[in-house]
């Protein structure tokens, strides 16, 4: 079932990686978020590495999605949200006035919980990002970007004959892969995924997970998930959130087999959640 997606060989030489070897791609230090009086995140320290998938797990309302949305400043759209602390992308503070938010979101792409393709054709969905950022000179180059992105998202074979069909006409799993293709079409450095499989059936979920494996190494990936098995399957690092605190952060293998904290132990063994 899973082998239906053939990962495209990644041409790593294409991108110039600006991160020094061994340094994390993104670092978050003492990140706090409050909505009005309510504090949703109480000081989070996390590193996101280039060649790793970092999973954020925890019960509902623990702040893991809030934290993810800090990483590309999507919380800016919520007027009541206030973010403090420092988040750096390659050593640059993303909340500083010198960081352009449009530029940041192009470098840090996002895939949302519910598949949200634009009500336009499949081609237009993928081409939109490159077009507004001026990444392609001419139609041929744009076609190439669209094809490459759809191939990387494992959607090319299913979509190549119907590029002019509406993106909303695809199945749920295909829509989510289209959203991933749309995110990688602007060639980001980091991809944030906010529970990308929670609206999908197991087969579509397996395809997305396979895709995350294939994309690892090319993009730094951070994924929020409810599903602990999924975190164990796809990630190398895991952070456990509980009630707005980051309880534990470490290698996935250690978190799942030998957690330091009692609360982590209780959560992963199903005591609460």
């Amino acid at each position, binding site marked *: 079932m899973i082998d239906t997606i053939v990962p495209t060989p990644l041409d790593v030489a294409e991108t110039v990686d600006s991160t020094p070897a061994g340094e994390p791609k993104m670092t978050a230090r003492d990140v706090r978020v409050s909505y009005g009086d309510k504090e949703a995140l109480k000081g989070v320290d996390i590193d996101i590495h280039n060649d790793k998938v970092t999973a954020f797990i925890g019960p509902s309302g623990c702040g893991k999605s809030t934290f993810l949305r800090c990483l590309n400043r999507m919380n800016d*759209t919520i007027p009541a949200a206030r973010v403090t602390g420092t988040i750096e992308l390659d050593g640059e503070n993303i909340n500083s006035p010198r960081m352009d938010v*449009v530029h940041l*979101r192009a470098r840090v*792409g996002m*895939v949302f919980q519910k598949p*949200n393709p634009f*009500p336009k054709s499949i081609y237009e969905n993928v081409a939109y990002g490159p077009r507004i950022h001026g990444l392609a000179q001419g139609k041929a180059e744009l076609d190439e970007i669209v094809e490459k992105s759809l191939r990387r998202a494992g959607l090319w074979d299913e979509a190549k004959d119907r590029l002019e069909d509406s993106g*909303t006409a695809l199945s749920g799993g295909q829509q989510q892969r289209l959203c991933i293709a749309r995110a990688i079409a602007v060639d980001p450095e980091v991809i944030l995924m906010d529970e990308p499989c929670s609206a999908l059936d197991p087969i579509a979920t397996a395809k997305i997970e396979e895709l995350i494996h294939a994309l690892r190494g090319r993009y730094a990936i951070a994924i929020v998930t409810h599903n602990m098995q999924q975190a164990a399957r796809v990630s190398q690092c895991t952070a456990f959130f509980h009630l707005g605190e980051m309880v534990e952060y470490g290698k996935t293998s250690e978190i799942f087999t030998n957690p330091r904290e009692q609360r982590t132990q209780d959560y992963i063994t199903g005591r609460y959640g």
Partner: protein
Amino acid sequence: MSSGAHSNSRGMESTSLGRPTRWTDGSMERLVAKRYAAERRFKFFGLAAVTLSVSFLTFLLITMVWKGAGGFTRTDIQLNIDFPRSDLMLDPAALTGPESAEAIGAAGLDTVIEQAAVAQFGAGGGELFGGASTRMLGERLIEDPELLQRRVALWLPASSKADVAAKGDGDPILENMLAKIEHRRRFNPTFLTSSDATDSSVVGIWGALKGTFLTILVTMALAFPIGVLSALYLEEFAPRNRWTDLIEVSINNLAAVPSIIFGLLGLAVFLNFMDLPRSAPLVGGLTLALMTMPVIVIAGRNAIKSVPPSIRDAALGVGASKMQVVFHHVLPLALPGILTGTIIGMARALGETAPLLMIGMRAFIATPPGSIAEPATVLPVQIFLWSDEVDRGFVEKTSAAIIVLLIFMLLMNGLAIYLRNRFEQRW
């Protein structure tokens, strides 16, 4: 766990009632039957309400068409005119030049017609023909000056009195006279091509229709862009604070202000202060734009609000700027709703009379406006003016004008539905 909660609540229920619920002893069936009866009653009342409103509408339409259809026709009577023997002093050569209209006007054709009518139909014959016949005879003579050399029998439109009598609603003496005379009913193109007049046999709605068209154009050109941009700004860009709340309340209030007050405002601001031309479609359009804009803003904001936030997130997530999100994604998706609201607002403006009376559009205007700065009137005001006339001939003209107005509105609403379906996208 859920089954535990379930049995627990069941247990509590049976203890509080003191007995288990019995589903089969007949009391439940009675309860269900009552529920069905309530449903049937509701359906019946709903159907009755719909039937009532449809029958009112049908009654209105049928009476309108019944009365108004006659307004599109005229009565023609055949009249024998012996030009060589008449008193007419008209040089056929003058009819071909550029001054032909003046020559005809000065020739006294009305006297010729009256004399011929008296000669043919007796003493009351002069009553049978009016302004419309003079006008038509003039046109025929310019077309064919040869007629002046002969004795001819021409079909000429009857006077408004005779027309009313021929349609069975006028003076008994004229009705008797007409019963003996050969006459026919014809479609009256003058009604669609001419403007207001004192003689109901020569009036038309073209002037009012053109005035309406120009007024609506001005309204549309102002209210649509300003309204849509205001809605976009308020919904997507403006911060939520006391000022924007105040603006929102003011706009909602403006939408409910009686239209006559907008007319007074237009009179004070556009005519008295800005000195714009009186009775002009420009001023009418400005006044109606003030009235329509709040409606467009409210409809636009609702349409924009109903665009799912996930689309905004998606666009922001690939690095679109706020402006790109709004103009590439939100506006196209909100457009069907905005258009529907706009056209409903426009249709309301189209039927508006009171504010236009205030700015002088109730004047008697006998020539269609050439531009938005020239005096004009609009259809609803024309209907209002004609309904006030003493001449019986205006009764059916009023109904006919109402039919034209209704057709205009039907076309606009049809356009609204077409545009909505055309731009509707699913997500």
